[in-house]
């Protein structure tokens, strides 16, 4: 539940932040798009303004050609108009129509026919394009046209004032002496020389002494120049603005439409510009429809995408983390429970062990006490047996035959053995009972004392004794003395039958611990029986070597009391080495 809540919060926060950043970027891009739109619209307007200015400059140049001489040849016009068409690509066609009085028509026709224009006649535009000229005495026949193609050639000789679609504009130029008129010619049908949706600018050509700005009356005009304009060449200043709907109006009438223009749309941005061209108002309206569709959505979408991606990934991470925490918490509880259970079990086992230990200790104490008591209590009757056996031998030995003496001797030997056994048992039991007083001990000195006493029991044998000097340790002096006595005693006993008996006491380092050793070159023992070495009453040799089998058990018990270890290595006939540590 908690995880779900945290996860929901994380997701919600991530989505919110992503949407926020994305919408901020979107707003920025929207502003950029609208700014770009505004810039593009301004650029188009400026382009059209400049282009119209350029057209007027070009018109001045061309007018000058006709003003400079009254005999402009086809070649002159060709050269000049080709230059203009090349320089101003949005002018598609140039038409020159001089003013001719009707009384001069025949002479002019003849002149042209003589120049090679076979069958030349001035004429009106075809019926479907024609309108009756309002001038009765004057015509403006098209004399020159560039580019000169079979289609444009159809205009040659036609009175431009009869050109119906443009007549109003032309009348204003010719009759009202207006300085220039742009006119939109809608395709009225399949008419030679007029293509669909053409735009023409008609300008007057004035006599040389009349400048355009001083033009006031029709009489100042001697020709008309017409320029076919391609507004589409002016509309686009860069690729991107093809998305902008454009609507141009000339004197309130649609001049040009690009794209579907819907005024007052909620989802659009509109701009209105106005150009004044020689008294004509050209209204330009630009519309960025659905500005959203013009926004570069890549970055906002990218931000949204990565935001959501990070949110989802983060949610997974958070979820995983929370789940791990929950799992750990659960595991901790389980472990705590287990620990509690185990602790309880251990406590119970410990109690049981303690009880068992106490019980064992009590038993052990009882046994030791019993052993001590037995040993101690056995000593008195044994002394009686031994004493009376000696008395019997001394007092009545002569009365006994050999068999009787032998039997008495056996009693005495048995009593002695039993006495030694009791001593050893007492010693063993004392080891556990004796007070433990750890002090610094010179093992070398202690061993030196011990060995002296020991080898006195072998007066006929010369032992080679090597006791390393300076061996020290901490332990109970009495008990360590018992250890050395037993080990050195065993060494002397089992080496006593060797040719050159040798006894060594030394120390060596094993893994940083002092390990003392007692080595002899005696009979040794079979390592197969090494586990019996330190068990009480276990003997590895026959009667040729005296002993009760309690000594090494006593030694082990003392070593154990010191927290040490004892072990032995041997080979039959190669002597034995006893190692021990003292905690």
């Amino acid at each position, binding site marked *: 539940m908690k995880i779900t809540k945290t996860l929901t919060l994380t997701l919600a926060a991530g989505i919110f932040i992503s949407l926020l950043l994305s919408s901020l970027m979107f707003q920025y891009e929207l502003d950029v798009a609208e700014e770009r739109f505004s810039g593009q619209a301004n650029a188009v307007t400026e382009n059209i303004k400049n282009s119209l200015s350029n057209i007027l400059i070009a018109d001045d140049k061309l007018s000058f050609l006709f003003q400079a001489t009254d005999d402009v040849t086809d070649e002159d016009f060709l050269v000049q108009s080709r230059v203009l068409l090349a320089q101003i690509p949005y002018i598609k066609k140039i038409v020159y129509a001089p003013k001719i009085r009707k009384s001069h028509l025949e002479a002019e026709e003849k002149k042209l026919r003589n120049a090679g224009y076979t069958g030349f006649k001035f004429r009106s535009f075809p019926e479907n394009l024609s309108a009756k000229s309002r001038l009765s005495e004057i015509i403006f026949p098209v004399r020159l046209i560039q580019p000169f193609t*079979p289609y444009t050639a159809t205009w040659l000789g036609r009175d431009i004032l009869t050109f119906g679609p443009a007549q109003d504009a032309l009348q204003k130029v010719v009759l009202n002496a207006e300085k220039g008129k742009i006119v939109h010619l809608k395709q009225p049908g399949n008419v030679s020389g007029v293509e669909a949706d053409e735009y023409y600018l008609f300008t007057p050509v004035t006599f040389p002494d009349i400048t355009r700005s001083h033009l006031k009356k029709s009489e100042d005009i001697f020709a008309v120049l017409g320029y076919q304009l391609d507004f589409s060449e002016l509309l686009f200043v860069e690729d991107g603005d093809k998305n902008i709907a454009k609507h141009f109006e000339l004197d309130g009438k649609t001049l040009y439409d690009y794209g579907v223009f819907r005024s007052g749309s909620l989802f659009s941005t509109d701009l209105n510009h106005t150009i004044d061209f020689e008294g004509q108002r050209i209204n330009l309206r630009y519309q960025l429809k659905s500005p959203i569709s013009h926004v570069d959505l890549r970055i906002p979408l990218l931000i949204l995408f990565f935001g959501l991606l990070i949110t989802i990934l983060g949610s997974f991470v958070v979820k995983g983390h929370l789940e791990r925490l929950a799992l750990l918490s659960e595991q901790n509880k389980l472990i705590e429970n287990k620990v509690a259970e185990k602790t309880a079990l251990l406590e119970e086992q410990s109690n049981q062990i303690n009880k068992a230990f106490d019980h064992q200790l009590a038993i052990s104490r009882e046994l030791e006490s019993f052993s001590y008591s037995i040993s101690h209590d056995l000593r008195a009757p044994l002394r009686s047996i031994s004493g009376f056996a000696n008395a019997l031998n001394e007092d009545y030995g002569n009365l006994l035959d050999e068999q009787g003496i032998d039997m008495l001797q056996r009693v005495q030997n048995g009593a002695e053995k039993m006495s030694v056994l009791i001593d050893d048992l007492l010693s063993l039991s004392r080891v556990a009972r004796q007070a433990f007083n750890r002090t610094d001990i010179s093992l070398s000195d202690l061993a030196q004392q011990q060995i002296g006493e020991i080898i006195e029991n072998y007066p006929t044998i010369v032992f080679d004794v090597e006791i390393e000097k300076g061996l020290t340790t901490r332990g109970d002096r009495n008990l360590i003395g018992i250890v050395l006595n037993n080990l050195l005693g065993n060494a002397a006993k089992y080496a006593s039958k060797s040719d050159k008996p040798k006894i060594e006491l030394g120390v060596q380092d094993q893994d940083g611990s002092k390990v003392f050793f007692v080595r002899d070159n005696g009979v040794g023992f079979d390592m197969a029986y090494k586990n019996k070495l330190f068990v009480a009453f276990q003997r590895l040799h026959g009667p040729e070597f005296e002993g009760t089998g309690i000594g090494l058990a006593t030694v082990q018990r003392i070593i154990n009391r010191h927290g040490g270890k004892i072990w032995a290595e041997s080979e039959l006939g190669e002597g034995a080495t006893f190692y021990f540590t003292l905690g």
Partner: protein
Amino acid sequence: MIRHCTLISLSLFLNLALPVVSFANSSANSSGETAETSLDAGASKKCVLVMSYHKGYEWNDGIESGVIEKLAGVCQLKKIYMDTKRNTGVVFGKAAGSKAKRIIDKFKPDILIAADDNASRYLVQRFYKDSSLPVIFCGVNWSAEEYGYPYQNATGMVEVAPISPLLKNIQRSIGVVKQGVYLSSDVITEHTDYLRYEKEYIEHGVTLKPVFVSNTIDWKREFVNAQKADFIIVGNNGGINDWDEPDITQFVLRNSKVLTVTNYQWMMSYAMLGMTKNAREQGLWAGDVAVAVLGGLSITDIPVTINKSWYLFVNTDLLNAAGISLSNRILNHAYKSW
């Protein structure tokens, strides 16, 4: 007597029969020779180009290349060479016209293009005047009225010499001119041309003095005399049989003091400035009109026109020798070799 009669008979036979044999041979070899070039075998429209002259004649080839350029991919084009440059007789011309008609009638074209005068004279005027077959003529000299044009079914381009443009260039080069000399061989066509020049130049206040000669000595003498004028128009040398090109080239180089102009490319060795007609312009226009007519434009709506572009040449050796400099506009646009 018998021998005399035999000679007379032989002479009559030769006089009557040889032209026929000659025509028959030339018909077989070149006259009316057709060469069909299928510009677009898949095109449904058919066009015929009838050329007055023969293949290999430079003017003829210029028109032909212009037509071919425009009609490529538009129609199947059949070309007919009338070969009337090498065979100038009227009989031959009429026969070539008749043969062309037979080919045309069999081919059933959608449009007929007639190049140069004889195609109009011996073919169009005789067989296709005001017919239903649209006709486009080109390369007709000075005026097509001579062949009855305009017809209801025809239009075209007339070939005029650049009389007025040449005067303009003279004026641009050396300023105001009052008097010039027209120096040419003494042949009818040159007399005709001179009259056109004279008429045009007088309208511009320039008088022309005509000088027609028949041999090189006279030509040289008159050339030196003409140096007193403002300029010299060097007319055609065709008809001056002892014309020695290297000699006259050197002579002109030594004796040129005033501007010399010509309308003939082959006379550029003796003139400083040349304006010559452009055969390809004729062919290109005819091709353009054919395409428009095949596309639905009424041929009667297209008026007859004249050639409008010229080749401009300058002879820099002569200009340098005479110390005359032309405007940069001319020098930049002119060919320096011919």
